[in-house]
């Protein structure tokens, strides 16, 4: 039983004390990795506009993962109706009329960057980093391993194709070295994104034939992070150019709770046995 840890079966973890210390040290460890390429750090809001995700065909590719922030339609009558009939039914809120939903809770940290640099002509490569609480609705949840809300640290490169490919290759090596240094056993595996009905989605077939995602696999198959080559997909969608052509991009992503799981699984639940990640 982990100390200072509380799990809600709907896929949400709360933690403090030594666990929070581990979370923070892991994140700082990845921030130092980002500093190696002089990445600029950003902080983004919790929501992304629906129009941003529509540009990425997200609603078609990942409808099963989406979580949306819902607000009530703001007429006094509607708010009074809600207030008067607010009893929960099996834990669920009885809604009255809802306002149009124009946002989605962030599903992946790096999406914010493409929106932020929308329309930019880059004079040189961008190296960026951010951490975000991400939200993905799943069929089942497991503490630290599969959560509705989880935290992701990303290091992103946007620029010319060769620059992005070098960045990804270099960071794959750096992550391998970092995992080895701290005794976390990982292997790398080609992977595809978790598409809805993959057999019917040509994007899944395309990713299988030309892999653009490599996952850092811990233990018996848990992906604790990934290296992703987006080619010029985001550059085209958001009109970001490098050398006059659609920019390429790539990211290195770390699932912070999953790294915590890897540490606990490897070294046990006593904080004194954990690496310091200094």
């Amino acid at each position, binding site marked *: 039983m982990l100390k200072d840890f509380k799990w809600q079966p709907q896929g949400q973890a709360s933690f403090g004390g030594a666990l929070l210390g581990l979370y923070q040290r892991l994140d700082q460890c990845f921030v130092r990795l980002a500093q190696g390429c002089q990445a600029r750090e950003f902080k983004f809001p919790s929501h992304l506009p629906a129009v941003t995700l529509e540009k990425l065909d997200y609603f078609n590719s990942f409808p099963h993962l989406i979580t949306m922030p819902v607000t009530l339609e703001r007429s006094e009558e509607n708010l009074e109706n809600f207030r008067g009939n607010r009893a929960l039914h099996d834990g669920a809120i009885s809604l009255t009329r809802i306002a149009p939903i124009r946002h989605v809770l962030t599903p992946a940290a790096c999406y914010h960057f493409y929106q932020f640099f929308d329309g930019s002509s880059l004079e040189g490569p961008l190296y960026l980093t951010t951490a975000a609480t991400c939200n993905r609705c799943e069929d089942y949840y497991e503490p630290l391993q599969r959560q509705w809300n989880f935290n992701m640290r990303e290091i992103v490169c946007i620029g010319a194709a060769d620059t992005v490919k070098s960045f990804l290759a270099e960071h794959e090596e750096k992550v391998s070295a970092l995992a080895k240094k701290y005794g976390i056993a990982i292997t790398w595996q080609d992977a595809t994104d978790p598409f809805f009905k993959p057999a019917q989605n*040509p994007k899944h*077939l395309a*990713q*299988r*034939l*030309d892999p653009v995602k490599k996952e850092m696999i811990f233990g018996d198959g848990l992906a604790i992070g990934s290296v992703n080559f987006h*080619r*010029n*997909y985001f550059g*085209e969608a958001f009109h970001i150019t490098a050398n006059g052509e659609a920019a390429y991009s790539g990211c290195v992503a770390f699932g912070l709770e999953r790294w915590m799981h890897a540490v606990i699984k490897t070294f046990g639940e006593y904080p004194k046995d954990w690496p310091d990640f200094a």
Partner: protein
Amino acid sequence: MSEQDVKKQLRDWVASKSKAGKPVNDDTPLMEQRVITSMQVMDLILFIEKLSGRPVDAGKLKKGVFRDVNTIYENFFHA
């Protein structure tokens, strides 16, 4: 059909689908440069079936088979 004819037909088909309108060589990385987008992969399979006269089982395709025109020729047309 000769190797050169097949490769020319493949190049022409790819060029006709490419949004960028860039020249397509036999070693142009088709998927990496998104000359062929993921949404066009099924169309490419249908075109290869038509050109080769043989069915292609998409489920059995291996990584890298559509890398460039040379690779497509080697995987689907080379005896």
